[in-house]
């Protein structure tokens, strides 16, 4: 892979391609995409949990038990938590992280 990763690359290129995967079977790629997404979700959950107080989490638990998604979304909004935004942010960060860690040049520079 080219040692110089650009922001364009991070935004528009396949992460596995950025990491240097070659001729990886589609099924395997899909499996890894899912793994990546789960990692991102874990990170988002951690971030959100850090922004919620224990009382908030208690309230969240009640809403989750009710299963009312609309109320749950409203609750997050009331705490200034934009779930989609967090997801995209963490996805970009993770993508950047993976690309950087996988690149011999940027890895050495770290």
């Amino acid at each position, binding site marked *: 892979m080219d040692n110089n990763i650009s922001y364009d690359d991070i*935004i528009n290129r396949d992460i596995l391609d950025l990491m240097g995967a070659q001729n990886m079977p589609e099924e395997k790629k899909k499996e890894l995409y899912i793994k990546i*997404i789960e990692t991102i979700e*874990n990170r988002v959950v951690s971030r959100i949990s850090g922004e919620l107080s224990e009382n908030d*989490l208690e309230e969240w638990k009640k809403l*989750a038990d009710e299963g009312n998604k609309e109320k749950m979304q409203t609750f997050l909004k009331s705490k200034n938590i934009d779930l*989609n935004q967090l997801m995209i942010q963490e*996805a970009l960060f993770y993508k950047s992280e993976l690309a*950087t*860690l996988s690149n011999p040049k940027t890895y050495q520079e770290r």
Partner: protein
Amino acid sequence: MVEFGKFIGKGVIWGKESALSPDVQKEQDKAKQEVMDDFRNQYHIMKQDGHTPEAVWQKMHESLNKFTIEKLQKGQELTEGEIFDLADDLAENGLKSSWADLKIYSETGVTNIKKLMKSRDLKEIEGIDEKTPITFSNLPSWFRRAFGKSILSGSTSLAVAAILSGAMPVVGAGIAGMAGANFLIEKLRSASEHELKKQEVEGIIKDIAASQESAKKLIEAKQNNPDDKIAINTSIEEMLNALHQRSTKSLEARQKLGSTKHKLKWGLASLASSLAGAAVGAGVYELISGGIRGATEKAMTEAAAKGEEFQIRQHAVKFVHDAWHWIIGQADIDKAHQTGDLLTGLTQSGQRIAAEAGFAHFETAKTAAAGIMNDEIRNIIAQRVITALKNSAIGLISGVVFGHTAESTFEYAGTPKEKKEIQEGTAKSLEKTGETFQEEKKKAEEEQAEAQKLEEQKKEAPTIGDWFDLSPTDVEENPIIHITEIDGDGNFVIERYGNTDESKPTEENVKKTPEELQHWLIVGDKKAARIARKGEVLPTHKAFTELPGNKSFILAIQNALRENKHPKIKFNTNAGIGKAYFFERLDDQDLQKPIPTVLVSYVENGKTETETRSIKEFFSLIDKEKTKTKF
């Protein structure tokens, strides 16, 4: 930058020394005295030269921090004042701070981490030793531009919180561990406003070690066996698995952390389960597997299907928000400050990235923003935008431009009237943006439908190979391709001409309708073409598909043969007279079948010659003629 007076006040902090050995203490005192002497000398010199106290402070601040960092690198304990200075420097100056040159090399970093762990009564951590390359991250320039401000924002809070809590090495390691260390930084910041819990410190360091270790294997695979695709792919898979496992364990650890508080544990568990799959809605899959543009298009399509215009706007704002991160990172603040206009400070590449990042309507946004800027509160807004840029308040910008997040991110301190005007202006611009998205989307759909229709028509039409029984290879090698390059620069013309034996185009003939034109095909250069087609010259690839009256060159011949007429192909050099060829079918007149053989006739010096040739030979003949006449 810290004010001069603030620095003077800090002098007393030096008195709060920790217990050091007498020798070390003496050495430090001596060094500080040298710094202070240097400061005094420079202060007087600079003051005499007319420098401001701030400039003097800036100069000395650099020296002091350099001194402090050297202590840190030596593994010496810092005073509260020194810690505060470093944190302050980082907060104020970001990557231009003294920290930018900081390198906590492996040995020192590990020593410090171990020391920290020991001080917190933690066990040794597996997977981290002197060989683990934990260093201060020398972030690639692109990354600084893209995320520098947001990272610094997190780092700043982290630095203040973590440094004051005594976790200095973790700061360096945290930044070093992951270029996109936002996760760890956020985690540290959010979890430790005043104090880091030992489980969290442990988790963070494990995360760092895991990412470093897993990446190291991949790097080794790439460097040792660059052609071993299997080994590289396997390493990638292992790396992703390791990071996934770490993130899961971190989350579990966090849940266990709340085990003593029942509600925290259950709150987290329900949060995790409720958010599962949320990435799909946000377009994360598209983002990691391809591009942000794909994610935008997906969201737009889904929103349009539901008739949710607001969702489109919301999504647009979201991506614009990200795009603005980049733009602002590149913005020429000085220029913006001089002109009082944010937009003049934006670079072209920033605009381009914004467009590519899914914000296809940058110009619209500029117009909308300019509209706001031009009203009576323009200067107020501009100044606040510039201030926000300086403070890295990214969200404010998208709020100003789009209004969507204005209330939540833009804490406007103007009069109620001004505030109302801003809200109305941003709402209007938002409305306009949403409408433009719809219009653009409709236009794109129409263009796509048209392209698809043309593609289908093209599939139905016989190809050169179909009609003349040529294989793809034959087509490539066949002289017919050469015919298309007769003028030497990629242009060529095929035109049906009148059903007379006129050897050259005339004004009278070109006025005939396609129906009146019969089965002559004229091939000539640009000049001939202009006469024949009133100046229209078709590019090569269009000549076969866009001939007026004939859908294609092939169809022209096909039609002529169907009508049992003799299509003729005429070469015309510089509007002069060349040879005329025509051919007719000699097979069983089954028009659906290819033409294996044709009767080729040509006129030369007033005499008609006729030969039977295969279609390939026929075109070879043409090719020879082309060469001979030096088209």
